[in-house]
C-alpha cells in the first residue's frame, strides 16, 4: 500500500491491522515517532494526519488512506518551525523521549488557536505525558511559539 509521509509517497508491505506507529518505525525507519504505551494514553506516538494530531499506536495502517502523515522529521527540515525554535529558546527538553509528540501536539494547537491561554494549552496537551516534568517549560514555550508565529506573519 501507499502512504504519504512527510511529503513523499512511500510504498509499504504491511498487514492491514499493523498500527501506523510500527509501520513508520519498523518498516520505514522513521524513529522520531515514539512508542510509549500502545493504548493512546501517553501521546508519544503523536503524528499529524492531514494536520490533526493522531495517536499512531492504535491506528491500523489500513485506516490511514490518502491522508497526509506528518512526523517530527517532517515538521521542518532543520528544527526551524516556530514551535521548535521556542522549544530551543525555553530549553524545554530533558530526556527528550516524549518531545516529538509534545511538539506536534503544540504545533497543531497553534494552527487552530494562534494565541492559546494556559487553559487551552492544558486542554490540548494533557494527553501527552512527560515523566521528566517539562510541563512548565512546555507551557512557556507554547506561548513563546505563539509570539514567534505572530512575528513571522
Amino acid at each position, binding site marked *: 500500500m501507499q502512504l504519504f509521509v512527510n511529503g513523499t509517497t512511500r510504498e509499504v508491505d504491511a498487514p492491514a491491522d499493523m498500527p501506523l506507529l510500527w509501520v513508520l518505525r519498523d518498516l520505514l525507519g*522513521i524513529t522520531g515517532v515514539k512508542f510509549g504505551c500502545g*493504548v493512546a*494514553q501517553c501521546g508519544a506516538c503523536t503524528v499529524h494526519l492531514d494536520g490533526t494530531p493522531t495517536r499512531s499506536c492504535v491506528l491500523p495502517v489500513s485506516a490511514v488512506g490518502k491522508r497526509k502523515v506528518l512526523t517530527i*522529521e517532517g515538521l521542518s527540515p532543520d528544527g526551524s518551525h516556530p514551535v521548535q525554535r521556542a522549544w530551543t529558546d525555553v530549553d524545554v*527538553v530533558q530526556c*527528550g*523521549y516524549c518531545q516529538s509528540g509534545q511538539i506536534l501536539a503544540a504545533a497543531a494547537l497553534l494552527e487552530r488557536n494562534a494565541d492559546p491561554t494556559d487553559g487551552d*494549552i492544558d486542554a490540548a496537551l*494533557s494527553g501527552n505525558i512527560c*515523566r521528566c516534568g517539562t510541563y512548565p517549560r512546555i507551557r512557556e514555550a507554547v506561548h513563546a511559539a505563539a509570539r514567534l508565529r505572530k512575528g513571522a506573519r
Partner: protein
Amino acid sequence: MTVSRRSFLAGSGAAAAGLVLSFYIAPRNAISAATKPVEKPQVKPPAGAQPAPPPPPPNAFLRIAPDDTVTVVLAHSEMGQGIWTGLAMVIAEELSCDWSKVKTEHAPAASVYGHPARFGMQMTGGSSTTRTEFDRYRTVGAMARDMLLRAAAEKWKVPPASCTAKDGAVTSGKKRLTYGQLATAAMALPPPEKVTLKAPAEWTLIGKPMKRLDTPEKITGRAKFGMDVQMPGLMTALVLRPPAFGATFASVDDSAALKVPGVTKVVRTSRGVAVVGAHFWAAKLGRDALNATWNAPPGGGVDTRAQLADFRAKAKTNGAVAGEVGDVDAALGASKTRLVAEYDVPYLAHAPMEPLNCTVRIDGDRCEIWTGTQMQTVDQAAAAKILGIPTANVTINTMFLGGGFGRRASPNSDYVGEAVEVAKAAGVPVKVVWTREDDVRGGQYRPAYVHRVEVGVNGEGAPVAWKHVVVGQSIMATTPFASRIKNGIDPSSVEGLFESPYLESVPARRVMLHSPESAVTVLWWRSVGNTHTAFAMESMIDELAHTAKQDPLAYRLRLLQGKPRFVAALTLAAEKAGWGKPIAEGHALGLAVHESFGTIVAEVADVSVERGKPRVHKVTCVVDCGTVVNPLAVEAQVQGSIAYGLSAALHGAITLTGGKVDQSNFHDYRVLRMNEMPRVDVFLQKSDAKMGGIGEPATAPIAPAVANALFSLTKQRLRSLPFQLA
C-alpha cells in the same frame, strides 16, 4: 608518561585519521587490547578538595579535532538530567574553548570511566554525577589547556608564560593558533605534573544559565534512544514473563505463535518465553498467541492489602536499630503528651516514557549491546557471564535514556541480561522491547513501607522522645551491594531519619527497621528512601506543630536552631510563598524541608480541593545545593522532581492480588499530566556549602508539603499515599 603511536591510533579510530588529540589510553582490562599500560600523571588536587583519586588521563574524556570541535566524553548517562551539557561546561571552563564548538558523546563501558565515588563502577545515580565529577572534569580541561599552551610555546620558541589560551586559541603577541591547529602537537607532549584550577571568581561558564547541547537532536527526532537502534538483520523480541511474582514457568505451546506472519522463532529465557519477529507488531501478536502455563506462586502470592496489615503489625514491634540516643522508652513514659502516627506508602513503578529495551548482537566470542543504562560495567559483566566470554569482549553503546529515575540502574541487569539470553538462544541480532504493560507489571518497584512514629512532647510542645519504626523491603538485599547492609540496616531504607535536623535536639531517640522479604522485586526510585522518610518526618513535625497550636513555620524554625542552611531555605521559601499573608479563598499553604544527596530543599505548596481531589496550584521551592553549575538545569531538575513526586503523591500505587499486579498502563497507573502541573517557582539559595546533587532532592518534600496544606485546609491528616480525601 609515554603514549605510543600505536595506542593513539587504536584509540582515536579510523575516522580520526591521526589528527585528533585523542591518545585514548585504555586501562588494562578495557576493551582495546592494543594499548600498553601507561604511567598515570600526577596532578595536585585543587585546594580544599578531599585527597583525590588518581587523576584520569585527559584523553579519555576529551578530544579536540583539527576543525576545533571539542568532544567531551561523558562517563555517565544522559537521561534528561542535563549532564550532557553540565559536564561539558565544567571541562570547557578550564579548557577555555569556544563553547559553540563543544559537543558531547557517551563513553564506552571501560574502567577508566569508573565512578569516582562508587567503587569504580561506571554508573549514573544517587544525584552524584556533577558533584563527584566536578574536580575530575575540571582537571581534564586544565591539563589539556596546559598541553595546548606548551605546544604553541614550543612551536613559536617562546616561554609558555608569554602565551594565553582563551576562546579556543593560543596567542602570544600577534601570533595565534587555534586548539585544532595545535591538537596534534599537544598530543605528543607529556601531560602536566600539576595544574591549578580557576578560582570561582574567574569562572565564565560555571554558574551561567547555559542551554542544553542535546536540544537540536531532541526536537527533530534525530536523537537516538535505545528503542531507535536499527541495523540490517535486526529482529524484535517480546518476552512473556511470569504473570505473578513468585510464579515460575511450567510449559508453553507455541504452535499458534509460530503461525503469526513475521514470527521467526520462539525461545526460552531463564524466566519465560521470547517471541522473535521481523518487527514489534509480529513479535507482539506472536506473544499474544503463546499458550503458556505457570506454576502458581508458593503461598498464593503477595496481596498488598494483607501485606499492609502485616507491616502495620510489625511496626508495633522493635526492629534492628538504625540509630539510638538516650533511653527512648523511659523518655516516652515520662513525656507529658504522646503522639502516635502511622504513615504508609505503596509500591511504585518508575514508568519512564521510553519502555525498557535492549539490542544485542553476538558475533563469535564478542558481544555488542545498545541500550539506555545507568550501570554500564555491571551490564557488561552480566552479559559476559551469560555468554562465557571475557568482559572486555562486551561492548556497551549507551544510547540516550528515555528517562531513568533508577529503573535503568539495574544491579541484576534484568533487562540487559534477558536480552543477551534471547540473542544467544535466537542466534540473531535482536532488540528486546518491553511493552508498557511489561513495565508496569515488571517489578523493580519502589518498595512499600509503613512508618510508625511515637513522639513524646514537653510542655512547650517540643519533642523530647522519638521512637520511629520503619517496615519495608530492603533494596540492597537482593543486589550485589548487600554487603552494605550492616546489623540488619539497609541504609537506603532509613536515610533521612536518624540524621534529620529535627531529631538532633531530641534527647531520646531511636530509629528501627524491619526488612521483610517478598517475591516482589524492588529497586531505587528517584530519591530512594527519602520518598517515604521525608513524608513521615515532615508530616509528623506538622502534626506536632498543630498539636502544640503553633504556626508550622515558627515551630520548625525553633527546632532547626543551629541549622542555618535549613533555616535560610525554609525562611526564604515561606517568604516567597507569602506564608502568613492572606491567601485566595479555599486555598492553604503547606511546607516541608528535607536534605538528601547533600542538598537542602524547602517547598511550600499552595493547594485547594476541587471536586473532592487535591489541586496543587503553585510550589515555591528554595534549593541549597552549594555551587551551581547550570542554573537552567537546576531549575529543570527541581520542576521535574516535583512533578515526579507529585505523580506519586496524587496517583501512584502498584497493588497486587495473588501475586499479580492490578495495574497495567497509564490509565490505571496514573501519572501527572499537564493540567495537574502546578506553577513551580525555584529560588537558588546562595551557598558556600559543598556541592550537593540536584537530580532527586526536590522529589521528597512535595508529598508532605501537600499533605500539610491539605490538613490546614480540610483538617484531614492524610497519612497514606497516594492521597485520598474523605
